[in-house]
């Protein structure tokens, strides 16, 4: 007691301050503050000589296209981690970038002989000012989106060297003036357990992302960046919208206690974690997790997924200017494999378009009119075997330290599989002759996401160990529908008989060959579709970690016999509407 009081007395020296803001994302984070200062961009006015105006307009155009490319990467990340609904948030940012006020007005001002930075900030200031005049809070808050886009553009005008959240390598709670959605994504990938900002609102994209990523956050604190010093102890209470800087021991104790209670509640939800995904009549399904980053392995295990069903290795290639080395691949994969033991990790070799690699010194990559049907994924790997081998060497070496399986993306037929296997065998031979260890029995699988592969699954499965159906692309390629195109999005139908028949064909081909088959597209995470997927005979469903308990719960309440019946009916019956109703009713948890 005496000791406790003394400690209390000591901490009184550091000034306690309590700030009230907006509760943006629930949960409590306690840690050391990391101050993330925004860069100041020089937006002062400069005159541009008449001869240089063209050059200045081009400089602005280049910044626009670089910002656009950066936002597309963010959108892709959001799409892959959180799905289509969230990716729409990124669309709004892209549209702001394409707004005639930016593309036309700014260019017009530049044409009068003014530098791009000043022209842009003049236009944005006017727009932001008119947003500030709005009474409705929701609309008023959109000014943050505009400011975010402006900041990105300015940083590209300044040469694109912007310090990002991704550069922070220590654990803690990050405090800044405002964060962009891509900053928030990086927080989860790093060691940042919560955040607090000066500005922002509850409906900002950053807040929405924080909620779905389960990162506690308080925003709109006005001057938290001025009040905090790097290294201060900080409590972010995302339930109440309160931030406490240098809390007393008593406050700290209370918060720790409250945090524990909340963890208990979360555990309650995760009670299913250690129970098998088994139907009431004893049919066992494996629930795997889809991840992009080694830091997600903790979440995979805490949500009760049995291993990684899809590791999207292409994220190793994002946001960098040189090709990842064999050592980087190896470290990344072995870290995941070790953490996931005794479960396995399926590493999908890079699923990228050539445009992503051209920034890293890959030459001879042409811009393609239709990259989705172009030189990407396994096609790119086969065209540039050196890059492919570097990754394979990393994967193989890591396979000595855990259970790793390899999966090739976008195989369209047997030929590509045989060609990829040949390179894999060569790589194994190289490692053997160098005396480097790897798993000699490493399993190789194929991602079935091209209709031609689904139709020839029998030929493909004869030369690999497993199949995993990637429904996002399979649906898009089969139904000729761009899933992010609003005009046709309503035609994107996972229950189209063509899709169900393709899945069934793949499942049967694998089973006839005595091999297992999984499904790792967004379809696997849709609770209303779980029963039909179980009924189609899939052995594994791979979903994002947070979705795993939900899907497991449904499987545990499903009868396999009934699920099979439903799946068969859906494959055959022309009265699909009625059947959809039937199984939606059946699956209401």
């Amino acid at each position: 007691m005496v000791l406790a009081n003394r400690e209390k007395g000591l901490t009184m020296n550091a000034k306690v301050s309590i700030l009230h803001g907006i509760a943006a994302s629930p949960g409590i984070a306690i840690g050391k503050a990391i101050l993330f200062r925004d860069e100041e961009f020089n937006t002062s006015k400069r005159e541009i000589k008449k001869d240089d105006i063209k050059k200045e307009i081009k400089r602005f155009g280049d910044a626009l296209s670089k910002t656009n490319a950066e936002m597309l990467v963010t959108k892709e990340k959001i799409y892959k981690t959180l799905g289509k609904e969230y990716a729409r948030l990124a669309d709004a940012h892209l549209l702001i970038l394409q707004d005639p006020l930016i593309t036309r007005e700014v260019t017009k001002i530049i044409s009068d002989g003014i530098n791009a930075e000043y022209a842009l900030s003049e236009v944005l200031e006017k727009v932001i000012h008119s947003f500030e005049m709005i009474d409705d809070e929701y609309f008023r808050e959109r000014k943050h989106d505009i400011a975010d886009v402006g900041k990105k553009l300015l940083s590209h005008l300044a040469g694109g060297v912007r310090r990002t959240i991704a550069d922070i390598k220590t654990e803690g709670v990050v405090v800044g003036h405002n964060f962009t959605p891509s900053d928030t994504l990086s927080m989860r990938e790093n060691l940042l357990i919560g955040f607090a900002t000066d500005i922002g609102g509850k409906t900002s994209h950053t807040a929405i992302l924080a909620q779905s990523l389960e990162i506690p956050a308080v925003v709109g604190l006005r001057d938290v960046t001025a009040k905090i010093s790097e290294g201060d102890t900080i409590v972010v209470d995302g339930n109440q919208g309160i931030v406490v800087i240098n809390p007393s021991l008593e406050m700290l104790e209370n918060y720790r206690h409250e945090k524990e209670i909340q963890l208990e509640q979360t555990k309650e939800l995760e009670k299913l974690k250690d129970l098998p995904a088994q139907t009431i009549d004893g049919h066992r399904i494996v629930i795997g997790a889809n991840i992009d980053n080694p830091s997600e392995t903790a979440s995979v295990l805490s949500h009760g997924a049995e291993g990684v069903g899809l590791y999207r290795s292409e994220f190793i290639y994002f946001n960098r200017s040189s090709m990842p080395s064999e050592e980087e691949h190896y470290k990344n994969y072995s870290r995941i494999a070790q953490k996931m033991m005794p479960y396995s990790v399926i590493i999908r070799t890079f699923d990228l378009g050539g445009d992503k690699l051209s920034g890293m010194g890959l030459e001879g990559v042409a811009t393609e009119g239709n990259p989705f049907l172009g030189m990407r994924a396994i096609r790119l790997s086969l065209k540039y075997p050196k890059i492919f081998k570097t990754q394979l060497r990393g994967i193989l070496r890591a396979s000595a330290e855990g259970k790793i399986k390899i999966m090739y993306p976008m195989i369209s037929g047997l030929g590509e599989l045989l060609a990829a296997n040949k390179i894999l065998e060569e790589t194994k031979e190289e490692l053997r002759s160098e005396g480097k260890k790897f798993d000699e029995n490493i399993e190789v699988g194929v991602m079935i996401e091209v209709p031609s592969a689904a139709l020839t699954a029998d030929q493909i499965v004869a030369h690999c160990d497993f199949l995993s159906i990637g429904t996002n692309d399979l649906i898009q390629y089969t139904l000729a529908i761009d899933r992010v195109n609003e005009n046709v999005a309503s035609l994107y139908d996972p229950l189209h008989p063509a899709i169900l028949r393709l899945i069934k064909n793949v499942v049967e081909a694998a089973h006839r060959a005595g091999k297992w088959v999984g499904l790792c597209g967004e379809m696997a995470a849709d609770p209303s579709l779980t029963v039909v997927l179980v009924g189609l005979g899939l052995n594994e469903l791979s979903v994002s970690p947070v979705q795993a308990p939900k899907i497991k719960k449904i499987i545990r309440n499903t009868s396999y016999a009934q699920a099979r019946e439903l799946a068969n009916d859906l494959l055959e019956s022309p009265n699909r509407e009625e059947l959809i109703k039937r199984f939606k009713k059946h699956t209401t948890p």
Partner: protein
Amino acid sequence: MIEKIVTIKNKLGLHARPAALFVQTAAKFSSQIKIIKDGQEVDGKSIMGLMTLAAAFNTQLKLLANGSDENEAINELVGIFENGFGE
């Protein structure tokens, strides 16, 4: 030039997603598109302009289209208002 009066039928008003849908649709046409709310006029191809209208549920707006495909443009844009932006 044609003009039409429309009413916002979705509960949340012309928020980010409907505004995006409107702008994307407007961009398909070569005609100039304008939206007027209580005398405030904005470019129908500008998402920032549209959002500054802060048009809420039941607000009446005037749509203007001017150009070679003004008829098609007005029809399609009125259409998305009528089905409440699919929400």
